[in-house]
């Protein structure tokens, strides 16, 4: 049973079509990445899932029922444009959000304290929000999203502004929530995180889904024509007739072969020119798939 399902959803603002016949579904226990360059229609799609704006046509189903505001009690939403009440104390703020989601004050208090401990910000609970760093505030927003134990979690660019340590903590938390059976949708520009975390993706460009499906299945559509090479010596093999494109990072090269390019021949040329420590034929990264699919139209 899909937790969220979009069918032929379209939304236009004046003459601009923000979302154009978009369709995808997300199951419980699935981590779903919504990708696309700036202005592709990711946030517009998410806002429609949250009932903040309404689609012009198409349908949105939450928890296998047509969209209704009551269903949002089971959804946790972290928007891209996120903020907090600056003058409020952190704990008061979290209890307020919890109560709005239908929790009793004591329950919300208990959950907020427990989450704060888990995300290592329990010593900030009694401070005013404005006294905290941006990263700390982001953790509080994250707790506010999860406090009512939602079955569906939607996060718009959740990793932006986080340092690597906190990004890792957030990743681990999301994976743990996925293991608990939560459906998680997040949008991001960070392809490495999508590749690492998501089971399925939908790549949107100019409002349309240009690529969607399970990550494994998408990657298998592309031939293994990428080679990673670690070497010492001459880089003349990077100009081989088998190579379409090469990036050299001081002894670490990323190579894209020409269609039907011969990797064995390239290995032979490389070993003749330099000492080879690593020569690995890999499938294209999501970033390369992204760039290939969206082409030169990316304005991000």
């Amino acid at each position, binding site marked *: 049973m899909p937790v969220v399902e979009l069918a032929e959803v379209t939304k236009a603002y004046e003459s601009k079509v923000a979302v154009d016949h978009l369709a995808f579904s997300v199951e419980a226990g699935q981590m779903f990445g919504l990708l696309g360059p700036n202005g592709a229609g990711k946030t517009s799609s998410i806002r429609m899932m*949250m009932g903040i704006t309404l689609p012009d046509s198409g349908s949105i189903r939450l928890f296998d029922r047509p969209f209704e*505001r009551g269903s*949002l009690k089971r959804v946790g939403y972290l928007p891209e444009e*996120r*903020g907090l*009440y600056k*003058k409020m104390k952190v704990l008061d703020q979290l209890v307020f959000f919890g109560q*709005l989601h239908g929790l009793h004050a004591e329950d919300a208090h208990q959950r907020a304290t427990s989450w704060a401990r888990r995300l290592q910000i329990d010593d900030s609970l009694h401070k005013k929000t404005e006294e905290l760093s941006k990263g700390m505030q982001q953790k509080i*927003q994250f707790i*506010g999203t999860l406090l009512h134990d939602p079955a569906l979690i939607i996060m718009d660019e959740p990793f932006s502004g986080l340092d690597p340590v906190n990004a890792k903590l957030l990743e681990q938390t999301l994976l743990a929530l996925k293991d608990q059976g939560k459906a998680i949708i997040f949008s991001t520009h960070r392809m490495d995180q999508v590749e690492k975390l998501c089971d399925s993706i939908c790549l949107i460009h100019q409002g349309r889904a240009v690529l969607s499906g399970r990550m494994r299945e998408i990657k298998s559509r592309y031939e293994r024509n990428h080679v990673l090479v670690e070497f010492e010596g001459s880089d003349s093999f990077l100009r081989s007739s088998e190579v379409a494109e090469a990036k050299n990072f001081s002894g670490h090269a990323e190579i894209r072969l020409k269609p039907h390019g011969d990797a064995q021949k390239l290995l032979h040329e490389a070993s003749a020119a330099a000492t080879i420590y690593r020569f690995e034929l890999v499938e294209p990264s999501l970033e390369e798939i992204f760039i290939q699919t969206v082409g030169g139209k990316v304005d991000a």
Partner: protein
Amino acid sequence: MHSILLIARREYLEQVRGRAFKMTTIGLPAVFALIVGVSYLSSLGLGANRRVAVASNDPALAEQIRHNLLGDKQAKATVIVAAPATPQDRALLLSKVEDGTLDGLLSVETTPGKQPAATYTSQSAGDFITTGRIRSALNHALLDERLTTGGMNQVAADALVEGISITTYQAHKDGTVVRSSAEASFWKGYIMAILLSMTTMIYGMNVARSIIQEKTSRIFEVMLSIARPADLLAGKLIGVGAVGLTQIAIWLVAAAAILVSPFASAVLTGDFTVHISWAEAVLFPVYFVLGYLLYSSLFAGLAATCETEQELQMYTPLAAAPTWLSFALILVVINDSNSIWSVAASFFPPTAPVIMFLRMAAEIPPAWQFAVSIGLLALSIWGVLWFSARLYRIGILMYGKRATLPELLRWLRYS
């Protein structure tokens, strides 16, 4: 409803605990009292301690004018008399006015069978208080002189010229008659109208400021995922309105405590007895709530279209114009609280709260007029809320640029 109450409670507690609430609760009445006190104290000394010369060909008249001027305790004037005055005397006195030794010269010429001719020369053309006192002293002296010339004895003439004071009472429709003072009634109505307009404007602006701050802090999208835009707006209006009522209640309790104190009873005696009727006590919070809802919903719509507080301030004079109009109508209302203009202004929703209180100070209007006034206010609140809620719904999610008029019209269409 649960969300509305939670949002209202948060808004209320946030503002009541804030420094601004504490400062305005204490500071505003203090500033108001200071302004009234300073105005009153300075008015006591206005036109006082003047050095005036009276030059006339009629010594008795000149002496009577001097007597009248010195009899005015507030004037504390120094008066010299030159009578009968020669042209040289007048020239000398005039030169003293010119060099500032004297503040003014009153020159009176009487000719039998003709109206006396009087001139007053001073360096200050705007000293209307002194001019008024001199005119009064002259007229009383002339009247006194004519009465005594006509055969009345001096004591009877003085008593007649001095006049008698009138004690005023106000008869109410319920048959009660209470002692009243037109001056005290005017000031009571005026102060209540100021309090009403000031608080509705202040709290209307608070709603607007709060919306701008939330827009700046980007909290809206988080909140919209939990509550409907209408609930957010309703919660904010109720919360901030409750803050206003709390503040007014504190002021009224403090004012009542002061009014029943021994100090107040020593100061506010006689003609300055202030009577606050039940109608005024009940209708004040009613008109505050209605006026506040009208202005705050208007400000909420405006704030949703603005990016910064500076931008909002550009609209404020426009939104506050009805309040200015109310105060411009004070004289019309005081002059005749039942004139067509007074009644119309008390029905016109933007001016209704202030004008109704000014009317009530003079005379309690009929019940049907309250019903019409309150009904029209409620109807206009509904209209403005409808309009503002549509702007609010879209405006709170628009960041980065000021909305143009065509965009605002589109927002109204989309909602």
